[in-house]
């Protein structure tokens, strides 16, 4: 038994928390990447805004695009609803209303994370402490995953949580592909000596570097990175891996047909993409379409589980 109102809170709680974790990963790894690149080579921080999908919101309140402003906006700014601190606070608010369905330790993990992130937000911006701050965000999110994975019945609450997590994660992976990978593919081969470092950055921003290396022989090459992040079902942060996660969650929820149809069309979109991506612009367009499909899926979830009209 799961109340519709609680279902809504769980689904969004999962999305907020996954967003916090993914944003932390992207910012942390972008910071590391930029430190590796010599001055002048791709040292702009603006791609971070594009990956986070908050370019327009940022431009409204900021005249310049300096590192500290951008990082503060993405990590520490409470007025930005998508920042790490805002996402964690929103996840905690949502979980406050769902405490009776989650193991108590889950609430404690989120509460700890909230207390940590809101205590000293500037340490998430300062370069010297940034990696540690963001690392703690990621570890605490993993702690929650561990609590739910190891202590919770696979009931409807669990599956809705997983569904929200998978939708948000797919969203982030497609944005990393649509922004970072697409622009790298568009750069003529050899024009940039730091190509490999940049591709490593793409992998690392979804923590896929090591798993990619294990599944792939030879040096890093762009089109296989794209395929890995799109199609490797065995990797839980790939788009295909997320789609599988959505399917298995939906299969255990009531009246899944409308939402499942939305997942089908998302998967059909993926199937139209070439196995070896070479065209950056095409990849960017395709990722936009995948994200539109995710928005549609989100609407189906709302209609089915919250409004009960499906």
């Amino acid at each position, binding site marked *: *038994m*799961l*109340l*519709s*109102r*609680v*279902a809504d809170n769980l689904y969004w709680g999962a999305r907020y928390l996954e967003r916090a974790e993914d944003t932390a990963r992207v910012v942390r790894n972008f910071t590391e990447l930029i430190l590796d690149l010599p001055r002048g080579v791709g040292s702009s921080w603006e791609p971070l805004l594009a990956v986070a999908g908050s370019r327009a919101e940022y431009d409204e309140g900021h005249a310049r695009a300096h590192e500290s402003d951008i990082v503060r906006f993405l990590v520490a700014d409470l007025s930005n609803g998508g920042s790490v601190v805002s996402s964690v606070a929103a996840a905690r608010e949502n979980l*406050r*209303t769902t*405490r*009776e369905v989650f193991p*108590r330790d889950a*609430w*404690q993990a989120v*509460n*700890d994370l909230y*207390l940590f992130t809101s205590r000293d937000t500037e340490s998430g911006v300062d370069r010297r402490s940034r990696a540690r701050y963001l690392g703690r965000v990621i570890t605490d999110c993993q702690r929650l995953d561990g609590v739910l994975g190891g202590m919770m019945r696979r009931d*409807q609450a669990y599956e*809705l949580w997983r569904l929200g997590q998978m939708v948000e994660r797919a969203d982030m992976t497609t944005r990393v592909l649509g922004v970072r990978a697409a622009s790298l593919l568009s750069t003529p081969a050899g024009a940039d000596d730091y190509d490999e470092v940049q591709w490593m950055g793409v992998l690392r921003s979804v923590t896929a570097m090591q798993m990619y290396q294990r599944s792939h022989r030879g040096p890093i090459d762009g089109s296989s990175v794209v395929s890995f992040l799109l199609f490797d079902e065995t990797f839980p942060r790939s788009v295909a891996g997320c789609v599988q996660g959505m399917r298995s969650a939906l299969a255990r*929820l*009531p009246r899944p047909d409308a939402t499942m149809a939305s997942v089908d069309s998302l998967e059909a979109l993926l199937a139209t993409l070439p196995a070896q991506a070479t065209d950056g612009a095409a990849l960017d367009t395709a990722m936009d379409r995948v994200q539109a499909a995710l928005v549609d899926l989100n609407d189906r979830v709302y209609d*089915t*589980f919250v409004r*009960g009209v499906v």
Partner: protein
Amino acid sequence: MAELRTSADLWDELLDKDGAPRRAAAELVQQLQSLGLAELQQRQDLAELDIVGMGITFTVYSDGRGIDRAWPFDVIPRVIAADEWRGIERGLVQRLRAINMFIDDVYHEQRVIHDGVFPAELLEHSVNFRRECVGANPKFGVWAHISGSDLVRDGDGTMYVLEDNLRVPSGVSYVLENRAISKRAFADLFSKQSILPVDAYTDELNRMLSSLAPEGIAEPTIAVLTPGIYNSAYFEHSFLAQRIGAALVEGIDLVVGDDECVYMRTIDGLERVHVIYRRVDDLFIDPEVFRADSTLGVPGLMRAWRAGNVAIANAPGAGVADDKVVYAWMPDLIRYYLQEEPLLPNVPTYRCVYDDERAYVVEHIAELVVKPANESGGYGLLIGNRATRSELDDAIASIEADPRNWVAQPILALSTVPTLCDGALEPRHVDLRPFILSGATSYVSAGGLTRVALRRGSLVVNSSQGGGSKDTWIVEA
């Protein structure tokens, strides 16, 4: 060595007049003394960290939004000897039996009025009497299923019942949480002596609520009805739902069907609810019957209840006995319904509705505590010897304007417990709220919530007004 002080004219729960430990507190006092202040302060700090980390909060509603505050807790427990406690338990069970018989009576034949024990005009003017409940028949004739009676101990050691909370009493979740924290702070003492566990409460609550289910329902679905996240006791609503495996619902989650049964909106569609533990005040539970502007309730809930399709705890209308005027009649009501003498004394109470008693109150107001009959949370309370002349005059004017709404009692010298205040152990005033469950049988929580007034000399223990809390140990000694 930590020095433990008492005040000469007050009863201390841990120490006698000579500063020697009371029988049941001997182990604790010895440990407090040997630990020293620095170590105690460290345990207090750790306890506060645990409270923040575990997210134990209460909500203060101000400026239109709810603010979550860490639950205030003092690490030094209050101790009661088990043999004394058993007597208190019997007194509380007796009291609740009489209260429930009274409520059932006033909604049926009103024998208590016909027999001249309780004045008819008081019932006619009671703001908590619900005409809509007349003739209703909740199971076992029980209306107040969950109650919290506030106990205070006077200077001579007598334990009095100060008031009975029969509407939506809160605090029991903190009894359980305080214990979890204090087991960490004094782990060794828990293994050295027998301290009654408090954890069984939620299981007893579950059993009692299940027993209220409509006939023929073996495994009832229970829901806890909360006003929502901005309510000061939301933490508790969520805690209790968690502990008894109930759904935590708001009014918008429930709907009454054409069959006059109550359903909740789930992702599988509508699911029947058999028992509602409501933490919403009577007047808000059904806009069809009570306040039409209420968004916290469920239209049709009263119809479903009267049809016997859903149990509501506490029953609508139970608050008729939660009234400082009815309180004043409690000793008479116990004698009338049970033919027994009250086991727990009432605080002598002057009823302003009577001319002679009102005249006494007006004349002696500086020596009395004046209370509105229908407020909770310590609001509107005036302590005569702490008030200015103009405050006293205002109170007299309020009493004269609406005598039925006021009662007065002598100022009790509330007992104290040593409490950590600014790095020293200071005696601070306490009360005690045990929780009583009434269904087919009765159950009393092992101890209850000890609330402590943290400011020197203050008698106000409510957490909404700066009070704190302590764990309560019932010790076999």
